[in-house]
C-alpha cells in the first residue's frame, strides 16, 4: 500500500542504461515503484535523470551533452563515481536503494525550493542527523508514514545512496543521509538488531553454481568418445529393434517376473505396504529397500557393466528371496548406511534403470498393445537415466491416454523408446491401465501460445541451436 496523499512521484528520465537494468527499473516503476518514480521523456518535466555509469560511453555522453544541466542524477554503478549533484545507487539494484535515492533527491529539491541557500545550508539539510524536517516524508509502502527512531546508515550497509552536492561536501558523507527509518526497512527489519553486511551473497552463489566452474575444454576425440558412450548406453537401456509393420513377435516380449526387476518391484510393493525396510537377498548381493526415504542401499551400481547382466539374467527358482527387516536389523543397516553413503541410491532411479536393462526394448507379455493406457505422473526426470524423447513421451502420454504405438506415431519416433519408457513407468507404478481413472486428474489444457518460441527454447535447453 502506498501513501498517495503525501507523495508525488519523482519524474525521471532514463538515460544510458543497460537493457537488463532498464527492464528492472521499468518493472519496478510500473509496479511497486509507481508512487516513487514516474518516467517522462519531456525534458521540461524531468526532475532528475537516472543514468547507468557502467553502460559503455554513458559518462562521456553525459559530460558532453548534459554537463550544464542543474538537475540531479541518480547514478547506477558498481563503484561510487563521486559525481557532483548526484545520488549513487550501487549495483545490484534493489527497491530499497531506489526508494532511498528518490527520497534523497526529493529532500534536496524541497530544501532548495524552501530556502534559497548556500551550499553549506544544503549540506545541513541533506545530511541531517535527526528528523528535524518532519514535513518531508520518505516514500512509503504503508498508508501512514510513521515517525520512527533515527537509524544510522552504515557505509558498509546495503543502502549506500550517497549524495555529493559539491566537492566541498565530501567530508560529510559519512553522516547518515536519511535518519528516518525507511519503510522498506520496516518490512525487513522487524526490530531485530541488524548486522550490516554487503547486500548480496552473489560471490558465494557463484561458487555454488556448477555452471560457473571452469571446465577444461574438450577435444574432438573426447567429445566423440562421450557421444559414442552415450549412444551405447541408450542401446543398453532401450534395445536396438527397428520398427516393423509386422505384429510384435514373441521375441519382443518378456516376463518381468523372470528377472531381478520382478523381485525388485515385489519388494518395493511389500516395503510400501508394511512401511518397513525390505531386503532382497540375491547372493552374494543384498538390496535393501527403504520405502519412506525412497532409497535403495546396495553395493551394486546401476552404471556398472555387471549390473547389466545381473538385470538381464533370468533368475532361477530360490535364487532370490525377500524378507522384512527386524528393528535390530534396521538399526544395523542404518549404521552401515552412515559408513557407506556411496551405496545409497534413489529408489526411482534404481527401479527405472533395472527395468529398462531387463526389458531391453521388449514389452511385457501381458500387455495388450491395442489398449490405451495412461501415465498418471511424470517420472522424476532430473534423477533417472533419460534417453532420447523420454520427456516428450511423458508429456504426450500424461496429457492424453493412448496406445504405445500411437504415441510413437504421434511423436514420429522409434517405437523402442516408447516401449522402454513404458517399462520404466510400470516399474515406478506410474501407469494407469484404466485411463478413465486418470482423465479427471488432467486439469489444465496445454497452451500453444508462442509455440515457436517454446520450441526454440526447448532446443536451446537441450543444447541445440535455437
Amino acid at each position, binding site marked *: 500500500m502506498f501513501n498517495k496523499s503525501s507523495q508525488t512521484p519523482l519524474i525521471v528520465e532514463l538515460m544510458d542504461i543497460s537493457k537488463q537494468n532498464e527492464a528492472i527499473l521499468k518493472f519496478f516503476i510500473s509496479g511497486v515503484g509507481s508512487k516513487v518514480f514516474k518516467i517522462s521523456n519531456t525534458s521540461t518535466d524531468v526532475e532528475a535523470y537516472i543514468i547507468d555509469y557502467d553502460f559503455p560511453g554513458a559518462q562521456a555522453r553525459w559530460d558532453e551533452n548534459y554537463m550544464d544541466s542543474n538537475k540531479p542524477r541518480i547514478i547506477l554503478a558498481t563503484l561510487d563515481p563521486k559525481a557532483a549533484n548526484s545520488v549513487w545507487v550501487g549495483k545490484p539494484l534493489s527497491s530499497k536503494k531506489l526508494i532511498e535515492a528518490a527520497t534523497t533527491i526529493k529532500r534536496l529539491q524541497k530544501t532548495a525550493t524552501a530556502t534559497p541557500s548556500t551550499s553549506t545550508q544544503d549540506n545541513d539539510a541533506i545530511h541531517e542527523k535527526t528528523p528535524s524536517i518532519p514535513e518531508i516524508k520518505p516514500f512509503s509502502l504503508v498508508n501512514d508514514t510513521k515517525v520512527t527512531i533515527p537509524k544510522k546508515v552504515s557505509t558498509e550497509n546495503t543502502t549506500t545512496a550517497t549524495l555529493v552536492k559539491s566537492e566541498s561536501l565530501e567530508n560529510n558523507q559519512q553522516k547518515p543521509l536519511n535518519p528516518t527509518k525507511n519503510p522498506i526497512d520496516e518490512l525487513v527489519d522487524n526490530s531485530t538488531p541488524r548486522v550490516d553486511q554487503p547486500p548480496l551473497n552473489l560471490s558465494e552463489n557463484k561458487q555454488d*553454481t556448477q555452471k560457473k566452474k571452469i571446465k577444461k575444454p574438450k577435444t574432438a576425440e573426447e567429445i566423440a568418445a562421450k557421444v559414442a558412450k552415450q549412444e551405447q548406453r541408450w542401446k543398453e537401456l532401450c534395445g536396438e529393434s527397428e520398427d516393423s509393420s509386422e505384429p510384435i513377435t514373441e521375441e519382443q516380449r518378456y516376463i518381468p517376473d523372470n528377472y531381478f526387476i520382478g523381485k525388485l518391484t515385489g519388494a518395493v510393493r511389500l516395503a510400501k505396504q508394511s512401511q518397513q525396510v525390505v531386503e532382497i537377498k540375491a547372493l552374494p548381493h543384498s538390496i535393501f529397500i527403504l520405502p519412506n526415504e525412497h532409497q535403495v542401499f546396495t553395493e551394486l551400481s546401476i552404471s556398472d557393466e555387471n549390473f547389466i547382466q545381473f538385470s538381464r539374467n533370468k533368475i532361477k527358482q530360490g535364487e532370490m528371496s525377500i524378507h522384512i527387516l527386524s528393528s535390530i536389523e534396521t538399526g544395523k543397516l542404518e549404521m552401515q548406511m552412515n559408513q557407506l553413503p556411496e551405496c545409497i541410491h534413489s529408489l526411482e532411479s534404481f527401479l527405472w534403470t533395472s527395468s529398462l536393462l531387463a526389458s531391453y526394448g521388449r514389452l511385457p507379455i501381458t500387455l495388450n498393445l491395442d489398449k490405451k493406457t495412461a501415465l498418471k505422473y511424470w517420472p522424476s526426470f*532430473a*534423477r533417472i537415466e533419460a534417453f532420447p524423447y523420454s*520427456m516428450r513421451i511423458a508429456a504426450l502420454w500424461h496429457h492424453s491416454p493412448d496406445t504405445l504405438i500411437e504415441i510413437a506415431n504421434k511423436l514420429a519416433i522409434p517405437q523402442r523408446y516408447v516401449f522402454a519408457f513404458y517399462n520404466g513407468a510400470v516399474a515406478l507404478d506410474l501407469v494407469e491401465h484404466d485411463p478413465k481413472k486418470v482423465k479427471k486428474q488432467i486439469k489444465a489444457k*496445454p*497452451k500453444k501460445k508462442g509455440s515457436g518460441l*517454446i520450441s526454440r527454447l526447448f532446443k536451446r535447453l537441450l543444447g541445440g541451436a535455437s
Partner: protein
Amino acid sequence: MSVVNRKIIFTGPVGSGKTTAIISISDIEPVTTDQNASDMTQKRKNNTTVAMDYGVINVSENERVHLYGTPGQERFDFMWNILTKGGIGLILLMDNTRQDPYQDLKFYTRAFKEFIDEQQMVVGVTRMDLQRTPNIDNYRRWLDELGYSAPVFEVDARSRKDVSVLIQGLLLSLDPGVS
C-alpha cells in the same frame, strides 16, 4: 525488428532455491535483491530476496525468456500478482527440509491458483539430499488431493542441468507436441 519477450516465474518458500536456480540457468549476470535476513528467515539463511530476482535466457537475437523469482516471504505477496502478469508458467520450488512441506504446497498452489489455472506449473523439490521425507510420491499425491496435475522433480537448484529439466518439463506441459 521487434523483440519477443516471455516470462517464467520461480516461486516457493524462503530458502527453496529460487535465487540459486535463476543464477544457475540465466545467460546474464542475474539481478538479485537479497538483503540480510532479520526476522524468522534468519534461521534458514543469512540473505533473503526482498523484491525479486531476475535473469534471462536468450533464445535468439530477438527472443528472450525472462526469469523472475518472487520473494519467498509471505509478507511480500503483493509482488506476486505483479510478477506473474504475462508469464507463461510457474516453477514452484519446495524446500524438503521445511517443517510442513504439504502446507507450503497448499499455500503456494492456492496463492498462484489463478495463474496455474491459466498456464502450467512444474514442481521442483530441493534439499532432498538433506531430508528424504516426504518423498516425490508424497508430493504427487498431495498435488492430486489439491486438484493439480503437474510434473514433480527432485532437483538441486545449483545444477544447471536440473533447472533446465524443470523448464523443459514446463515447456512440454505447455505444448506436449513441442520438438
